[in-house]
């Protein structure tokens, strides 16, 4: 049954749903709202209507809907510098890394996965059995998913798409984990097998080579392409230099630098 209409199997049910303008409009709003981190009632009706038409035109193709949204002008607004005068910049813009995205991004960049093996707690009578090895950015009970802006669907039912004290602390701690791992592991590996530090060794301290490495990091982490002598790298070079001057330890200087770079606003938002 679909709103009082009898159906014969899932195919017919699907057809009835596809023909129902309420369903397609709702789908258009939800897709747009998800990608732009807006509530469905904040999605402008004219945009929802155009996406609904696209759904119809493509035979209810969800991939086409998603593609249209992320390739649309609204999705570029986070990187627009001047106001276009159409109110778009007030409605949409930077998107916050969701907790799971945060974990995926750092894993792709550094190989660090924030998981904890709880199997040794299986004998604890005060805890549920079989906790396994949860990813702490995906887990909302023991982990940091909620504190990073996610939901647990019981106590917290709406995600937070901005930064708070706790989501800042989660990002900082994650950056610290990833920085430690990268530096400890990279200098033990041949350059071609490293995560991030391909151009330096544990005894490299000359400015030219360090700046080459920093330029590579800006490209990899932020998508910013700068020549190594570019002034845009000066603050990162100053950070590395000051950290090295403080500790006289090249590994520690890189951990300090990467901790900072991985909690940068360009990591926090996209």
């Amino acid at each position, binding site marked *: 049954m679909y709103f009082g209409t009898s159906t014969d199997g899932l195919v017919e049910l699907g057809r009835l749903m596809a023909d129902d303008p309420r369903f397609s409009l709702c789908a258009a709003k939800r897709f747009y709202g998800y990608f732009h981190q807006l509530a469905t009632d904040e999605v402008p009706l004219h945009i929802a209507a155009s996406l609904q038409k696209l759904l119809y035109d493509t035979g209810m193709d969800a991939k086409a809907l998603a593609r249209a949204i992320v390739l649309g002008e609204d999705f570029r607004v986070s990187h627009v510098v001047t106001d276009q005068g159409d109110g778009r910049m007030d409605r949409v813009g930077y998107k916050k890394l969701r907790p799971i995205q945060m974990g995926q991004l750092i894993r792709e960049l550094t190989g660090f996965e924030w998981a904890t093996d709880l199997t040794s707690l299986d004998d604890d009578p005060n805890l549920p059995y079989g906790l396994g090895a949860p990813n702490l950015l995906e887990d909302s009970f023991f982990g940091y998913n909620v504190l990073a802006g996610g939901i647990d669907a019981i106590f917290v039912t709406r995600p937070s798409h901005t930064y708070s004290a706790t989501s800042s602390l989660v990002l900082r701690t994650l950056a610290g984990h990833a920085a430690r791992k990268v530096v400890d592991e990279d200098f033990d590996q041949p350059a071609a097998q490293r995560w991030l530090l391909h151009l330096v060794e544990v005894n490299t301290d000359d400015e030219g080579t360090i700046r080459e490495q920093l330029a590579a990091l800006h490209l990899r982490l932020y998508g910013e392409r700068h020549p190594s002598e570019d002034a845009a790298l000066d603050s990162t070079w100053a950070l590395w230099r000051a950290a090295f001057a403080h500790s006289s330890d090249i590994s520690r200087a890189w*951990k300090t630098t990467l901790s900072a770079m991985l909690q940068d606003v360009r990591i926090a938002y996209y």
Partner: protein
Amino acid sequence: MHKLSRRNLILGGSALLGTALADARPTRAASGAPPRKLILMVASGGWDPTYVLDPKPGLSTIDGPSGEIRRFDDIPVFTDASRPAPTAFFEAHASRCQVINGVQTQSIVHADCLKRVLTGTPSDASPDIGAITAFTHARELAAPYLVLGQTSYTGPLASIAARAGTANQIGGLLNPYAGLPAGSFEQPTYPFMPDVTEESLIREYVTARTARETAIRGQLGHNKRRLEDFSDSLWRGDALKNVGTLGELDFTRDLMVQARLALEGLETGLCYAVQIELGGWDTHANNAAQTNLNERLYAGLKYLVDELAARPGENAGSKMIDETVVVVLSEMGRTPKLNAAAGKDHWPVTSAIVLGSGVAGGRVVGASSDELGAVGVDLETGSSLPGGTQLAYGNLAAGILSLVGVDPATFLPNSEPLHALAT
């Protein structure tokens, strides 16, 4: 009193260079009441009001505990030797308390009822009254809304909330050695821990990069708001690190510990509203467990109010209780009759206590019938109006907002406040 605010951190020589405060704190809100701090104490799971607040002895329609009615000021309380803590609490503080009975929740689902009684709306996109209070009066503080329990709704005001987490995850963030390790307990790994100088270098870099991003594409609208939130989150996170005892809020979520942290947070100016919580009230079997739960709740509540009455407030000669409103509520009540497991199931009528500054204390407002139905109420006087409009969760929430100096029409335009809460 030293307050943990952005302004203090900047003046204190911190490297956290921020923009000027966006909004000045109002001295008097549109509701007519002065700004008041708020402590929300949530008895989650659904309490049985007949144990203490809404006595119903001797009725064939209701299965209740044993006991007798005693009056404290003009509040009839159901007392028993097995429940000394409620008696001790009302002996000490009845004159500060208003009991609200017969609150209609219009749902019997935990999550739905919780969002209704806490936000005053049926939408989980709405902020709760703690978040609204903190946002309206003190968004410049480090952790305007401190959530030490589990259940709170922040909606669009999420950036001002600091949550402890279901298993006190905040303790692990403030001290990674105290939290769950990455890897395993046998072979743990911990994050890089910068020293003070390195921490300062990191912060200087992140702050400068944020300022650069703000200058390029953060001057308007959505981007501007998000970048301001990011900047604020940096010093707000730092301020939480200064609350050393947060780590004591362990997995058991002891109510006394929460109450102590709430007092510390308000007293130091870390926060303006706090949510604390005692769970376990969902007694579908063995409803008699409500006895022990009430003991724990009222012991914690008495400690909290004793301390509020003893500790100095912000103004000369005042105490914290003179500047604070405490709300104790549960999302639902329990059925009149016991079920086959000697438990009670969900019921859409509940009770609450509102106490503290500006509260018309020593009295009961609203009522329930002999079948635990919500009786109509006059929102101005609090008198029962059998056959009249029932007291709904939105009226209570709006009344509390008005009491703490927030214009309820701004956030709950469709709910008339329970005016009888205020003196």
